[in-house]
């Protein structure tokens, strides 16, 4: 596994963590049926933080970030996103979802719409943005992820890496304050991982608050300001990347790191 995500200097000037709280999770528990999948999660994320969540499969990392935009329902505890508490009130859920962007492992682009239409759908129908403005904004973000020339193609005609970059642009078009990444590079060919990570790094350089579930430890080293290690539905260890990788404290973390970095 590569130790670095990109071979260039990363501009950390704008990667500033503010004192304002973006997400606050207090005493959160979740069950799938009788299976206790998330256990007593406490986590505060400040604006501008880039957090990488690592851990073995089945440890609940994806479920954790899917709780933040209510794709999964939690049963106990509080989740407060940008000052709005997640409850069963649909209005709160819609409000939070329009402020939190999400990128999925399998892209989940809408195959019946062109790339441009994928990017303008939510701004037009949720934010009531005029079509022309929504299209201009979509083109702006497509340029940012470096595929403006694909705007009128359908997702099925693009490569995996291109599709994932469209998915990132689609989320950005909603002007989210927080971005969630659920294993964004796990379904990609090795050659395409880099182009997606590049896009994510640029986003970090602009000061976006990001939570990434990923196995890209190079990305964690270079971009994250905090790495969270989860196992069996619990947060086992969290630290700055330098410390996390060089000086892991718990045995479980040491074992995990030796497994994924050991070859």
């Amino acid at each position, binding site marked *: 596994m590569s130790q670095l995500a990109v071979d260039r200097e990363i501009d950390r000037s704008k990667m500033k963590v503010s004192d304002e709280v973006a997400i606050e999770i207090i005493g959160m528990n979740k069950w799938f049926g009788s299976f206790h999948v998330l256990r007593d999660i406490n986590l505060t994320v400040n604006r501008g933080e880039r957090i990488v969540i690592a851990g073995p499969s089945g440890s609940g990392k994806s479920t954790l970030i899917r709780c933040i935009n209510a794709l999964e329902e939690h049963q106990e505890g509080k989740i407060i996103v940008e000052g709005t508490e997640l409850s069963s009130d649909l209005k709160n859920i819609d409000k939070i979802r329009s402020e939190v962007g999400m990128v999925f492992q399998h892209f*989940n682009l809408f195959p019946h719409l062109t790339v441009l239409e994928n990017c303008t759908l*939510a701004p037009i*129908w949720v934010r009531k943005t005029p079509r022309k403005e929504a299209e201009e904004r979509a083109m702006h973000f497509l340029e940012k992820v470096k595929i403006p020339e694909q705007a009128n193609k359908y997702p099925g*005609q693009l490569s995996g890496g291109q599709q994932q970059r469209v998915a990132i642009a689609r989320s950005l078009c*909603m002007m989210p304050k927080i971005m969630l990444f659920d294993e964004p590079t796990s379904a990609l060919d090795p050659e395409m991982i880099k182009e997606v990570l590049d896009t994510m790094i640029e986003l970090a350089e602009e000061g976006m608050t990001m939570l990434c579930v990923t196995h890209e430890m190079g990305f964690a080293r270079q971009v994250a300001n905090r790495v969270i290690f989860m196992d069996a539905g619990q947060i086992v260890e969290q630290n700055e990347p330098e410390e996390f990788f060089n000086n892991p404290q718990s045995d479980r973390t040491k074992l995990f790191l030796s497994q994924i970095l050991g070859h």
Partner: protein
Amino acid sequence: MSDKAYVRTEMLEPRDPPPSSVGPIHWIRENLFATWFDAILTILSAAAIIGLLIEVVPWLLSPTWGGTSLDNCRKILAAANHDGGACWGVISERWLQMLFGFYPAELYWRPIAAFVLLGVALAPVLFSDKVPGKLLYFTAAYPFFFPWLLWGGTIWGPLAAAAGFFIGYGVYVVASRMVGNLTGVIAGILAAIIWWLVLSGYAVDALAGIAPIGIEPVESRKFGGFMLSITIGVVAIGASLPLGIVLALGRQSDLMIVKYLSVWFIEFIRGVPLITLLFVASTLLNIFMPPGTDFDIILRVLIMVTLFASAYMAEVIRGGLAALPKGQYEAADALGLDYWKAQRLVIMPQALKISIPGIVSTFIGVFKDTTLVSIIGLLDPLGLSNAIRADSAWNGIVWELYGFIALIFFVFTFSMSRYSMYLERKLHTGHR
């Protein structure tokens, strides 16, 4: 350097395929004469087709277009030395009846206009990329115009029916602002139903008294032939698709009442043969109605066939919904689209596209099932053919009559099938 090492110094340019693997000769060799067994099958099939044509073509090309009865046909054939030919006299004499039933001949222009305009109304739906979208307003107005052209009567009837939708919508807008969305929907639907069932009758009578504008009414019992089949088919097809979508969504709903109502409706209607529903429509329904109510027989049949088709449609669409990856729902949710917007913009366009073959099969089935109305005494083409064969002049005629009916049905169903293939090609947006 070992002898296994190899480095390519220049990349190869693509070349044309060899001539033996393209072109018509290649196609024939590949598809007709690939092996000895294939060659024998090809020759046998060709012989069978030619044999069939030698039998059928002279039968088809018999000079009996002017025959006035079966005996008369036989005389013509004997005189022309063309034994065993078809007797087309029955078609030339009765084809207007086969098309229009007993609809008054001087009013034939009305069903003709209705079906020509049906084509205009369908055009923006079927060929949305080639026809201006403004025509959709005509499409929206057409369902009220269509029965008025066929049945006639006062113009206020269809206008009052249309007004029900505006009244319902108006009540919904006002009520949803005052007491909330769900209550608004219920209030709107109730208001529309009350208008249709109770108030609109008085309004139509009053308006017809003030301004008697209308065209000559035609009774349902004069309807018949392909006009009747197409009317039932078009209404059932047109109404069952939206109803089926609602039922399919209802079946997946989180609301228990909605879910079980949908499930039981679908299971009950699918579990009962259409012919039973038609008997209920033709006989039982009148027993339950208050005496003196005049509930039109064709309207009753339309409702039953529509309900029947929508139950099947719901299951076909549910199949399409089940085939969609869960990620599509999640992506729509994560972007903040609410349930109805997600359904309309993301889920349904894809689910319906996946379901096109099943939907069109259901359409074709419904259109062919319209012939069952002959059993409850309506004069659709099959009902008419029985009447014609009971006529002493045409007693004993079979192939010509049923062949003609089959041909017309085939033209319609084959067009539907070809259209669905065109639509699938048009909506294909690359592999997923």
